[in-house]
């Protein structure tokens, strides 16, 4: 059976390679499955739901969003790399730093960072250091002074371990020369009540939280290159003298070996969808990205460098 599918695949590939013009004119001709490796209701899911109708409009076929949560995404990615066919009809959502961190830290994450072809990174949620509105910390400096006086007392919540939030907190501690205690939660959702209820001093979270809870939280700084459109009054870490830029990038990937024209077509479709939903997403605190092709690969490289040292440090300490 396996042999059969493999040889058919080879045949298809051969045809595709020899006469790309003809066969590519036909992609896509059946529904596309768009797998989200997380639970419904999260940022990845919401974005996919927004993209879905736009993608369908552009591609002219149905795009079915399904979920395969587990292991912080690893379950979906390992299965995708193992079984998905490189024909462009299987697309999986992927995130930085997850796909960089997990294979480094876990004994066997079941997949490789470079084991799939990223079609596009379509948006970025920068990390943001957030405190409660009635907190004593008015500026980033207040926070740093406090942490200098009382090492480890400053508890900073965030989503997950080895996540963008976690790694950013560590980079921040290094850059500012302070000691904080990072408290991981299972996702961004539970961090919010913990911060509101005063169970944490601050939270390293993503900018959409800053935007959505404007009247409850104060954002001290964001880890973006430049100020986030939805938060014009919030300084960046860079402005304040700490060179940290990072957060979660979301994108989509296809299996390695997917023909280039198909990848291009998908990239075009996602670019078009991204432009359509940009307004809604910007208002929610996202930063739009249009990294396709080599840019997409380069981004993985940059972020691997940025977080790699931190991860290696943690690994050594263990």
């Amino acid at each position, binding site marked *: *059976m396996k042999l059969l599918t493999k040889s058919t695949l080879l045949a298809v590939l051969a045809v595709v390679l020899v006469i790309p013009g003809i066969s590519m004119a036909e992609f896509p001709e059946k529904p596309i499955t768009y797998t989200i490796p997380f639970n419904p209701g999260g940022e990845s899911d919401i974005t996919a739901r927004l993209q879905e109708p736009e993608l369908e409009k552009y591609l002219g076929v149905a795009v079915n969003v399904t979920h395969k949560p587990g292991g912080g995404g690893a379950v979906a990615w390992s299965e995708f790399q193992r079984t998905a066919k490189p024909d462009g009809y299987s697309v999986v959502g992927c995130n930085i730093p997850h796909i960089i961190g997990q294979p480094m830290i876990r004994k066997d994450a079941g997949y490789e960072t470079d084991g799939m072809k990223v079609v596009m990174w379509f948006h970025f949620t920068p990390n943001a250091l957030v405190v409660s509105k009635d907190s004593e910390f008015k500026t980033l400096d207040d926070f740093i002074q406090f942490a200098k006086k009382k090492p480890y007392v400053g508890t900073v919540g965030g989503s997950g371990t080895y996540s963008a939030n976690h790694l950013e907190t560590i980079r921040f501690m290094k850059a500012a020369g302070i000691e904080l205690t990072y408290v991981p939660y299972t996702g961004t959702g539970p961090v919010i009540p913990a911060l509101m209820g005063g169970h944490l001093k601050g939270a390293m979270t993503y900018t959409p939280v800053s935007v959505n809870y404007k009247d409850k939280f104060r954002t001290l700084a964001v880890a973006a290159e430049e100020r986030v459109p939805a938060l014009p009054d919030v300084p960046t870490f860079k402005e304040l003298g700490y060179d940290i830029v990072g957060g979660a990038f979301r994108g989509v990937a296809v299996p390695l070996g997917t023909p280039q024209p198909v990848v291009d077509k998908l990239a075009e479709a996602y670019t078009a969808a991204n432009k359509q939903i940009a307004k809604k997403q910007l208002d929610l605190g996202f930063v739009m990205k249009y990294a396709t092709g080599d840019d997409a690969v380069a981004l993985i490289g940059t972020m691997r460098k940025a977080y790699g040292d931190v991860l290696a440090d943690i690994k050594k300490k*263990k």
Partner: protein
Amino acid sequence: MNREINTEIASGVVGLILSAVFFFALEDISWMSILFPKTLVYIMALIALALVVRGIIKPSRDRIFHVGSNVRWMVTGVLFFAWVLFMPVLGFFVSTVVFMTIIVGYLARARSRVTIGKFMVWIPIVIAEVTFFYLIFTKVLYVPLPEGMFF
């Protein structure tokens, strides 16, 4: 049939075996990740031990596997496993039609004689039923069911 065993000792022994399985699977990772599971394994071993001790001090016996035919549930169980394991090979639809028909025939045998004529009635019903669920899941709920060599 009359099978009686001391279920306290039995469940204690099962608990000890499971504790051992998980104990040897404990790995040397950061305290945050391992503290809780480790504690639980010890707690389970303690409870299991208590069960064994109590079973020895105050022995009591209970009947087990006393409902109906044991062969029948075991065969049904094996058929369930085969059904699921064949799903990625035959695809959900084909695998389900095949194994549902087998289970229907097997269980019906307990009550009455099974004839070819009866299968002629059952098979269309099974196919109709599976088609209904298959369409709901794939077309309405967008669940990508396992595909095999057919579809």
